[in-house]
């Protein structure tokens, strides 16, 4: 098996429409400003904060017939994917056709789903046939494949934020077995009032965010190597998660030689962060980055943003980067990126 490298990265986040904007914001460390998330036509008797992706700059608008009425999650994903291709030295307007696409998400196309269901509740006979196909989980991957002209292996995975690690595992097989030459892995999420409210049920201070991260994986070329993957450490409850997280640090240590940067999953809310903080407490780091503290909780996109950030940190510091991915529902992971 050839080692897998992250040749290119792209990101759309609360910090802006580029991976560089993500890096600068997270290095600065200050939480980005949020705004109250309004309910359509209703007052909400409890606060509900969101941190949204800023308006799209004109140069980031991709033009294609398929993209005319797509939802935000697709627009973020397209921009991140094109940036990753460009970062890897490909012409995003004419990328190689032997690239695979693996798309990961947790909530999916929530804006159109909420809107379509509302139409169904009002009068199903008048529900829009244009909206319904955009509610399907794999619509964003389909649009990106059409935009890039990729007609081979394209798949969508639904799960927690760490699902991207299963995608990386499969991409590694696809690349090493010749199914594809390279693989674009994208994870994305869009925010709406329903998902923002849902987060407040977990903790009233959780701020819903959105965005997309994209990685171009390859067995050739330059870029940080994915030198170790720890996990999945499977769990089905928060208590079991707490018990398993210390294994992340124990299993990561043998892969670390010299100083490293940690990119963790902490939210800035002590109650939610306690287990992860305890797990890594015996380790010394060159620097610790906590993207969620800065960006907010971008759910299915969050680990992709961690990995994109880690790639940029490894390139900049020429030191290893550890990504901590405790996950939310099913399994914890960590990985080591080596420059």
């Amino acid at each position, binding site marked *: 098996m050839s080692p897998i490298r992250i040749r290119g990265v792209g990101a759309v986040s609360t910090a802006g429409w580029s991976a560089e904007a993500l890096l600068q914001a997270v290095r600065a460390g200050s939480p980005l400003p949020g705004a109250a998330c309004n*309910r359509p036509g209703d*007052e*909400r*008797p*409890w606060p509900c904060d969101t941190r949204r992706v800023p308006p799209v700059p004109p140069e980031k608008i991709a033009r294609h017939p398929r993209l005319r009425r797509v939802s935000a999650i697709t627009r973020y994903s397209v921009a991140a994917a094109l940036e990753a291709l460009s970062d890897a030295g490909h012409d995003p307007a004419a990328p190689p056709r032997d690239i695979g696409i693996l798309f990961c998400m*947790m*909530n999916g196309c929530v804006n159109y*789903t*909420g809107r*379509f*269901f*509302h139409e*169904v*509740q009002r*009068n*199903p*006979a008048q*529900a*829009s*046939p244009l909206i*319904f*196909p955009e*509610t*399907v*989980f*794999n*619509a964003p*991957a*389909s*649009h990106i*494949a*059409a935009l890039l*002209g*990729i*007609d*081979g*292996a*394209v*798949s*969508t*995975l*639904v*799960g*927690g934020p760490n*699902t991207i690690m299963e995608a990386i*595992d*499969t991409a590694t*097989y696809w690349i*090493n*077995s010749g*199914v594809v030459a390279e693989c674009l892995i994208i994870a994305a999420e869009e925010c709406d009032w*329903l998902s923002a409210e*849902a987060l407040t*049920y*977990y903790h009233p201070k959780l701020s819903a965010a959105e965005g997309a991260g994209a990685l171009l994986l390859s067995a050739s070329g330059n870029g940080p190597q994915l030198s170790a993957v720890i996990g*999945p450490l*499977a769990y*089905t409850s928060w208590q079991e998660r707490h018990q398993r997280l210390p294994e992340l640090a124990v299993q990561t240590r043998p892969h670390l030689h010299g100083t490293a940067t940690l990119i963790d999953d902490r939210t800035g809310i002590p109650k939610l962060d306690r287990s992860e903080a305890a797990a890594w407490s015996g380790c010394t780091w060159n620097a610790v980055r906590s993207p969620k503290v800065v960006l907010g909780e971008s759910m299915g996109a969050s680990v992709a943003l961690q990995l994109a950030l880690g790639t940029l940190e490894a390139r900049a510091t020429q030191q290893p980067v550890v990504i901590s991915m405790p996950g939310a*529902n099913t*399994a914890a992971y960590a990985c080591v990126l080596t420059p």
Partner: protein
Amino acid sequence: MPPPSRQRIAITGAGIVSPLGMGWAENERSLAADRMAFKPVELFDTTALIAKTAGVVDLPQENLFQRVPAHKQDRIDRGTRMLLLAIREALAQAGRSNMDGIDAMVMGTSAGAMPLGEVYIENARQEPGRVPSQLSRAEHYLPQRQMNIIADEFGWRGPIIIVSNACASGANAIGWAADMIHSGRAKCVLAGGYDALARLVFAGFDCLHALAPSGIPRPFDAQRDGLALGEGAGVMLLEAEDQHHSNVLGEVAGYTTATDLHHLTQPDPTGKAAIRTMTGACAQAGVTAQDIGYVNSHGTGTPFNDVAEAAAIAAWAGDAVPGIRVSSTKSAMGHLLGGAGAVEAVICLMALRGQWLPASLNVRTVDPGVRFDLVQTFRPASLEYALTNSFGFGGTNATLVLKRRSA
């Protein structure tokens, strides 16, 4: 094109829950009787919709999950209940009472636990204040939380992978699992697909005018006017052939997936991606079209799908096309969406084991584009290989080739 298959992948257990019945035996009896399973939908209001019937599963009323207390059973989605029953049957066939030794679970679904999400949305819209149990609904709407309930039921821990490529999800999940075994990442994987009827999805297909107004799908009929939805689950236990097996039911001999870029919801009329997946899966299995004794088509009954698939089968089979035996079991049970590919793969396995062909029902006049042998009534047959096609919204195409093992 995937590399040729080297690792033989044994199917050691299979389970099926469909509108035609619970389990292998009931489904086989229904298929042998050319029975249809459509009835009025009572799970939600269909008054304002064109279509009012579907293939509905009659789930047992009792609590199926022994480790979930009675007061928490409402957290479990219908689709997950069907999946549990299919998993239990697959494990029992493999001589297992639990999931010990299973390296991963790969499941396909299109809608997940959408009905729980619908209740969450309804509550949130109706109540400005906090609603009791909303956190639970928000959590359990996520398909991975539903999979956790299944993992807990068996006291199992391992990777859970959920593939969601619309109507190809179930076939993709089985192919994904086969790839895990091919690559040496796993020795034993539980794979399949499921979906339950959901109001949002039903209304979605209805507004697209994709559902047959009469409620009767007629795949490959010249006057076909749409599909019927259904629900169900299909599961296979896949194991590397070098494992010790007492009972091998068949093999996953080939799998290929490709993407149709033509349109988000309509196939390329020439079936380009389907030709590629059928050709690729056969190449991986080391067979040609002449060796395929039965094709379980995607065969939805919509005008666009069937003409494209018929063209693809003709191009793939070449001169052999008149002898290619094809049917669509969606004509009997409906389109099971994320469950379709897996359930139809299990039906192919049943056909290989039983040496029979299930029928395409309700055909009055065969579409002129059909050049293959459209099987219109259940019949005994000799077959060594079966192929199943699954095509989804978004353009995901998947083909599985299964190989017979003598009973």
